[in-house]
């Protein structure tokens, strides 16, 4: 299971948890898995077309997924994923 750091504004949906775990082979699959655990979270991260919202950044082990393969970026169990609103910032290690 990969670790996902949740920014403050989305913690209402994760029962206040700053960090959650989810499984999935790609970032896209991880978001789908998050949605089953925490319904409503996907629409906050992705737009109607399923793409990551313009003002949301996702980092895989410190690397912006825009430099990788976007939603197709592969994820390993040991990976740490951060969801960071582009202009709002948020916790990130």
């Amino acid at each position, binding site marked *: 299971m990969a670790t996902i750091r949740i920014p*403050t*504004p989305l913690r209402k949906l994760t029962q206040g948890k700053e960090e959650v775990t989810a499984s999935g082979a790609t970032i896209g699959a991880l978001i789908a898995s998050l949605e089953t655990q925490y319904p409503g979270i996907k629409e*906050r991260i992705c737009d109607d077309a399923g793409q990551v*919202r*313009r*003002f*949301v950044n996702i980092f895989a082990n410190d690397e*912006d997924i*825009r*430099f990788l393969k976007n939603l197709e970026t592969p994820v390993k169990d040991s990976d740490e994923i951060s969801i*960071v*609103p*582009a*202009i*709002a*910032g*948020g*916790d*990130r290690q």
Partner: protein
Amino acid sequence: MTAAVSNTNTSLVKGLKCRECGNTYDKAPIHVCEFCFGPLEVDYDYASIGKLLTRAKIESRPHTMWRYAELLPIDGPPSVGQATGMTPLVRADRLAKRLGLKEVWVKNDAVSFPSLSFKDRVVSVAVSKAIEFGLGTIACASTGNLANATAAQAAAAGLPAVILIPHDLENAKVVGTSIYGAKVVGVKGTYDDVNRLCSEIAGKYGWGFVNVNLRPFYAEGSKSAYEVAEQLGWKLPAHIVVPMAGGSLVTKIGKAFGELEKLGLVSAPARKTRIHGAQAAGCAPIIDMVLENRDQVKPVKTPTSIAKSLAIGNPADGFYARQTIVGSGGWAAKPTDDEIVAAMRLLAETEGIFAETAGGVTLGAALRLIETGHIGKDDGPVVISVTGNGMKTQDPLVGTLPEPQMIGPRLSDFDDMWNRK
């Protein structure tokens, strides 16, 4: 910490509105939509402003940015920067001749009060707004000019300032910040790292970060385009070339021209003002969006340009900046470092204006846009937006200019030197 602050003044600001999804919010030190994370923007009551604001009223007021007070988002009189704004718009005939253009103007924010860059306007608004919100500490993430402006205005307001900058900033910009008594923190990383850190600090410490949680208000302060239009005799230029870092200035210039038309303060020109963007080749994420016809920012990981004040690899307003440029019929250009230095010299030698590296980027871009025909030889007024002062960014010029010639103190020493040539 983001509880809405009630406002008892008669205000022409309705609140804040998300640029992406349209959600509305009360006036507060917040900058991001809770739902979609889009940027919030000040939502004005234009119907009321239209009834209040006339050319005559503006012209009767002092020559500062506050002559357009109704279009700025503070509710009372400004607490700082009362003398800021209304920098010279210089008719640049010698430069025009060199460029092969008919009419060129330089908007000279290199002499802005108090800290010699266009950031004085945005900070005057942001610090005044922070005081209205009762925020006790002023802070910012900065590539330099904003650091200077924020530290100066916070000092003038008697408030403590915390300024976060990239660790490798030009010495002049560091000194020009520390002098005001601000706490300066150098972050080992790029500006984008600094910016991200500031977002986290803003959330945790509850400070007034001028370009983070005060950003919707701050950004309104960059509407120098009102000044340009008035200084041109209540006319919009044919072209304006604007430097871009985060992309806020160019967006707000587009907005301000639109507002002036909407309010009937200028008449709509036969052809819309073409707004052109300028970035350095070493960090041009917004230019590339225009050139490659793409509306997603592809962040530049490691900016490599002498124009450090523009070195924002992940521009917050990149999407809107591109939209402004393309929507106006404008274009974009990214000069190299050599072209930037050459343009700084050209501006200094033709007009006596020493712009910072970003000014070299702007003029360098204009030269390219003339070459590609995006700015036509016979077009009307072309405005070059100079946003900062060259005294702050001298490092890249070292070694590119002739060294002073050394002579002895006697007249014969001078005669020898002069006649030798």
